[in-house]
């Protein structure tokens, strides 16, 4: 029985690797079962970091899995005629297998920091200010193009009006449809009016929880046109599943036209309601 059990344990690294290989290669039943299309110019780094960690952990997964199998196979009571190796451990080995993973893990952590800073800390600038140095107090930040407010169970979306400032009377409002121009750095202000929500754009590799009472910014740069999902990724109540939005990315001209149409519709509604 020992042999059969060892082989069962060998299946873990074998099938485990196979599943990931098939998914990455888009083959058979795992067609399209991998990272969805990335349409954000800053999103590629997240994908490559994911693959980097996958490669590293994959090696350890296969290595330890095969070692476990081999020891089970070789040291099966029914086949191993040698006496038990009476050993309480090895100081050298402990030092080696502490320092190597420690160094690797610190390296992984440091390796991630730039991507994290770019995604969440380095807000896009219009100009670095008079001193010409980024990260100083006189930096001029890019203002948000649009505000997204989460509400049970919809996305309330508000663009700046002619004055270019969000929060004034000429704002343009819509619900659940976020239209953005392609190939431009986009800054969005997000918040919530009731419970927690999460602003998740799978194709942009963007996720930010919306917290009532806190205004936060997300930024990304769409490089592909099309219609993408806007998902709520934080439990927000019974209708969480239907808090579904869409993000349309078009050219600058399409965007301007869409916004103008929306503005006119809105003015029409205001006029008729008066």
């Amino acid at each position, binding site marked *: 029985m*020992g042999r059969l059990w060892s082989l069962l*344990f060998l299946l873990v690294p074998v099938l485990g690797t196979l*599943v990931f290989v098939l998914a990455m290669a888009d083959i058979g*039943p795992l067609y399209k*079962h*991998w*990272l*969805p299309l990335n349409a954000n110019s800053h999103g590629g780094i997240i994908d490559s*970091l*994911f693959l980097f*960690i996958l490669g590293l*952990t994959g090696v350890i*997964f296969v290595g*330890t899995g095969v070692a*476990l199998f081999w020891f*089970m196979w070789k*040291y*099966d009571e029914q086949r*191993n005629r*040698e*006496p*038990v*190796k*009476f*050993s309480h*451990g*090895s100081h050298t*080995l*402990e030092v080696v*297998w*502490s320092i190597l993973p420690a160094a690797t*893990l*610190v390296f*992984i952590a440091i390796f*991630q920091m730039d*991507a*994290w800073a770019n995604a*969440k*800390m380095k807000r896009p600038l219009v100009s670095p200010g008079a001193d010409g140095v980024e990260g100083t107090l006189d930096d001029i930040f890019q203002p948000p193009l649009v505000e997204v407010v989460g509400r*049970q169970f919809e996305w309330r979306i508000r663009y700046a009006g002619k004055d270019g400032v969000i929060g004034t009377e000429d704002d343009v409002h819509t619900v659940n449809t976020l239209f953005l121009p392609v190939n431009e750095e986009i800054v969005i202000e997000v918040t919530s*009016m*009731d*419970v*927690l929500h*999460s602003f*998740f754009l*799978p194709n942009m590799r963007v996720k*930010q*929880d919306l*917290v009532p*009472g*806190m205004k936060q910014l997300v930024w990304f740069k769409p490089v592909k046109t099309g*219609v993408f999902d806007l*998902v709520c990724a*934080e*439990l927000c109540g*019974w*209708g*969480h*599943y239907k808090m579904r939005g869409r993000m349309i990315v078009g050219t600058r001209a399409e965007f301007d036209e869409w916004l103008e149409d929306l503005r006119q519709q809105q003015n029409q509604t205001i006029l008729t309601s008066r």
Partner: protein
Amino acid sequence: MSTTTVGSHGAAGAQMSVSQFIDTYVFSRDHKIIGLQFLFSTLLWFLVGGLLALGIRWQLAWPWSDMPVIGRMLFHTEGGQIAPEFYTMLFTMHATVMIFFVIIPILAGAFGNYLIPLMIGADDMAFPTLNMLSYWFMWPAFICIGSSFFLPGNGAASGWTSYPPLSAVWEAAPGSGMAQTMWLLGITFVGVSSMMGSVNYMTTIIQMRAPGMTMFRLPLTIWGMFITAVLQAFALPVLTAAGFMQLTDRVLGTGFFLPEGLIVNNNDMASGGGQPLLWQHLFWFYSHPAVYIMILPAMGMVSDIISCFARKPVFGYKPMVYSISGIAGLGFIVWGHHMFVSGMNPMLGMTFMVSTMMIALPSAVKVFNWLGTIWGGKISFTTPMLFALSFVSMFIIGGLSGIFMAATPVDIFIHDTYFIVAHFHYVLFGGTAMAVFGAIYFWFPKMFGRMMNEPWGQVHFFLTFVFLNGTFYLMHILGAVGFPRRLADPYDYQTFAHLQPMNQFITICAIGMVASQFIFAVNFIYSMFYGTPCGRNPWGANSLEWAAPSPPGHGNFDFQPIVYRGPYEYGSPEVETENYPQWQPPPDKPGDGGAGQDNPEKKA
């Protein structure tokens, strides 16, 4: 200890009066009875939690379709379908039950209680009455959480993490009414119970060890339990305080977690001054150490089982102890990794990323040491050993997938997707639950004096192992697509619409996994009464509990155990036998004539 206190519960049972029966089996102060009470209660809740999980899986595989047979009974108003608010209740209560009523109490309550005095050579816990209370404080918790199923909303439904404002505002969800209040009370009672247990375990392990049992001769199971008790003592007060704060937010109108200008369901909440993120910090300050509370005792038990059946000492005993302590210490400074995208200052995210990466180190050291333990041994593939080995195999997956989430940029994408669901199920089911099964098969003979059926145990292992991987492994792939958790119907999104077949496969495996547990249940109950009777030490193990009769009587040992060596001296060149028990005097130093010390088996 006088020999008059030693007696079998069973033998005295026939002549017992009702009040004696209640003293012995219901409000018992005997750690073994309390341990068994915890064991039976948690196994029953394990069944409840498993059925709740099947409800979740049904909806994800075939959303909005009639559930066969029980659908009409449960949801006749919705025509046999799961309603979305019922779905949110399902995953909330599944996690609540599994974490607070199964994993934590089965490790600390059942095995901690049963094993600590036996393995350190004590006659009972330091505070037997407190120990009894720690079990009976679980009952108000059972009643609170159980009754919340029958309150409006059919149970709390704001996730087991209970994030405000959803959980704190009555109008926010159907389950956020009275059910949520009962949920908070229930969790508080669980906390009180765990706190009593933890004080007791720490005192017992420090004060009541048998002569010769130094700290570095303790079995790793006891080290796991000890460090867990320390974690609970330091982390639980924070959860209790946070729970009370949320309770006052709900019923007294305070605003710890509610910011200004909240408009929920078109009601102006007239709230203010609070901060929802404060709850997350307080909650995870407990609940991240709690993750280690849910794994450290399992790691200890697995080390004992592997060493026993590999017939070889644990490789690197002291590094194992240090890594348990290291995990516990680091466990207090990693809670922020649950909050990378929560709106917490991203600068803090970097710090938490480094500490979280570092916690993978002691886990890696433990895995290498387990591999070192079976290297060069003589492995017998018994059911407990198979479960223990599968713990190692599954924990490798769960540990490695944690690195993805620890990496902040990657976490932006996979946070709150099925990747994290895969990760913690590999740690908690593949890891802890498999270790618990192994521990039950391993210590069952001690608990009931009978062996569990071995072939059926192996069938149970095989089916559980196969179905567990079928269920949870593919969730990594779902996570890579970005498939979000907690959605009642994810298939309306174009990104996820094609994932339904994979979810159906997962659901079928999950049904198989739950069904296989009935083999275990039957084996357990049958063996309690009709299993092969066994002696004191059926596995030829080394630690002290095997010196006591099976099952041990009141007061545990029928002689004063004296400890001569560590618990893992298998294959020692000093003796002819494979094992060299802790209580056996060295050949050149015969025993000091204590009752039955030379050969407890003979006396029995």
